[in-house]
């Protein structure tokens, strides 16, 4: 099914080429999305970034996007079509596009690629990501205060460093305010499958979790939480404000717009070069959504303070002493994690009882 969709999408991009050949001077920018822009989560925010480019640069640019592109060879086909049809800047907005981006980038040295959350770069491939873990620390702090059952449920997608980092960061922050806290992690093995995400939320709630965190893209877990009394959760990637004030009590918002506009501007100015960007709360790439009345005032205040300290650099989400899950030492007293370790994080910190699937 996805294959057919992608082929059709590829054809649509190709026909776009014919029509746009006249407008030679416009910079064509392509986006590939893992889900639909209407997911109200991850892809929605990337699409907001795309719209921000159009708004900021107007006539000088033209943007195209293809949605529901699987993280397989299909994505290579879509990116190749984009490159062939005159797109000079291509944003690939999911982790597992990584090797496919590298393959296509090799074939089109004149086309610049921007890969979200990846770690492989080339002269024409930049990577960018947000320090989501800073947001995770803030919601972990709230979760630790709010849980009555001391059980926090976590709907994870795939066991990749970004997701594991989020679990660790949330756990450490929750544990700091509530030593009794326990995490239950369910791996959905999908970024977007509303039915499965809802079932996962339900399974966690049935097993005593009263705070749910998600690292999947749809709002289905929110709908599921809403069915149960006294369950709270956090908007993921996007504000998910339609579920406020409860179950959604706050959120982690990915704000890609400033970065996207800057990169498009760099293309126009001819100053684009391969970079590795990792921005957090400080730069505004990670935002904490409004905390609702469902959170006690003093918790709101302390969470806000934590967010500000993370932004100023006064506090780092991973500050020692921290041991790895197996008990071996990782960070000494007062030591903070370096970006390299964080980027490749493949272990749980001490205290989390689950195992990382491999």
């Amino acid at each position, binding site marked *: *099914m996805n294959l*057919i969709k992608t082929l059709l999408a590829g054809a649509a991009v190709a026909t776009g080429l014919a029509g746009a050949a006249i407008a030679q001077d416009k910079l064509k920018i392509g986006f590939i999305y893992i889900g*639909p822009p*209407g*997911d*109200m989560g991850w892809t*929605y925010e990337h699409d907001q970034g795309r719209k921000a480019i159009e708004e900021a640069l107007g006539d000088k640019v033209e943007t195209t996007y293809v949605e*529901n592109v699987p993280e397989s060879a299909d994505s290579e086909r879509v990116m190749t079509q984009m490159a062939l049809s005159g797109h000079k800047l291509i944003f690939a907005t999911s982790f597992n596009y990584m090797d496919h981006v590298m393959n296509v980038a090799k074939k089109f040295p004149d086309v610049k690629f921007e890969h979200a959350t990846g770690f492989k770069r080339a002269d024409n491939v930049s990577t960018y990501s947000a320090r989501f873990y800073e947001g995770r620390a803030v919601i972990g702090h709230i979760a630790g205060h709010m849980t009555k059952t001391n059980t926090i*449920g976590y709907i994870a997608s795939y066991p990749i460093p970004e997701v594991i980092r989020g679990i660790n960061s949330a756990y450490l922050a929750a544990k700091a305010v509530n030593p009794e806290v326990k995490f*239950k*992690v*369910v*791996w959905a*093995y999908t970024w*977007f*499958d*509303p*039915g*499965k995400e*809802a*079932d*996962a939320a*339900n*399974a*966690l709630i*049935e*097993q*005593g*979790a009263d705070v749910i965190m998600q690292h999947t893209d*749809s*709002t*289905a877990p929110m*709908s*599921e939480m*809403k069915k149960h009394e006294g369950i709270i959760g956090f908007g993921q990637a996007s504000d998910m404000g*339609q*579920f406020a004030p409860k179950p959604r009590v706050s959120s982690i918002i990915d704000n890609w717009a400033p970065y996207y506009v800057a990169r498009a501007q760099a293309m126009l100015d001819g100053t684009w070069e391969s970079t590795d960007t990792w921005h957090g709360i400080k730069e505004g790439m990670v935002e904490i959504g409004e905390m609702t009345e469902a959170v006690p005032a003093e918790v709101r205040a302390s969470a806000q303070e934590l967010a500000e300290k993370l932004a100023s650099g006064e506090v780092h989400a991973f500050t020692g002493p921290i041991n790895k899950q197996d008990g071996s030492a990782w960070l000494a007293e007062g030591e903070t994690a370096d970006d390299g370790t964080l980027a490749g994080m493949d272990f749980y910190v001490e205290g989390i*009882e*689950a*195992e990382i*699937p*491999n």
Partner: protein
Amino acid sequence: MDLSSISPVTLIVSLMAASTPILLAALGELVVEKSGVLNLGVEGMMIIGAVCGFIAAVTTGSPWLGFLFGAICGAAVSMIFAVLTQYLMANQVATGLGLTMFGLGLASLLGHSYTGINPPAFSQIHIPVLSDLPVVGRIVFGHDPMIYFSLALTFAIWYFLTRTRGGLVLRAVGESHDAAHALGYKVIRIRMLAIAFGGACAGLGGAYLSLVRVPQWAEGMTAGAGWIALAIVVFASWKPGRAIIGAYLFGGVTVLQLNLQAAGLAISPAYLSMTPYLATIIVLVIMASDKKRQSLNAPASLGKTFFAST
């Protein structure tokens, strides 16, 4: 790992909700196949039902109208298949596959402005005293009305197929359309009605997905449920009672694997995610190995084109 944290009662309650969309779609397809038509477009009809039911429920504020409209739209798209295969003699397999693709595409188009909206709530019934009984209360008396409807529908279809004259005629058409035609039955008309019924059931299953189970509209949200429904018809050897077992088994394994993960079972979730499909395939293989019984139950004219020569 702490398996005691899995409560059998809540597990049963949630597996029934998870299975109902598949059960409804499978029941509809069962009737269609009993009339000798193979409609592989279940997935497409389901997703049309999901989006149309959602739009109707959001617009009118009534989930009941949503279910009704979902069923009507499911039946309406099934008529495309019906006209193509019954009057224009198109190949049923190819047309059914086409219907699935068409349905998925049309549904994303229709639902484009309906993502991120909450549908009106459709709550579980609550009978004083009975619903509060321990164990039995939640398993027997604590569901939403559509779950009872799906169970009643199973019984009604069983009764219709095995105990009524209409059911006998429908089965006769499915066994030998030439003989039924010679006896003066309107083969095409009966098949058209069966296909419409199948479409309505699939649409209803889709609407249940978008209005109760998730509840929201998201593109591609059926995620293969229609194909599972098709497998369950064979699994059930075209018997409505067994369709319940099949659907609940599939839904049960799906829910159970997530619960096992939450309980911390140390098996790779990748394997656990496979289990519902593996269980279905294994049962299908076992069923298929008994060729004689299989051929006794499968409608003899299944998938064959009927052309009234005289």
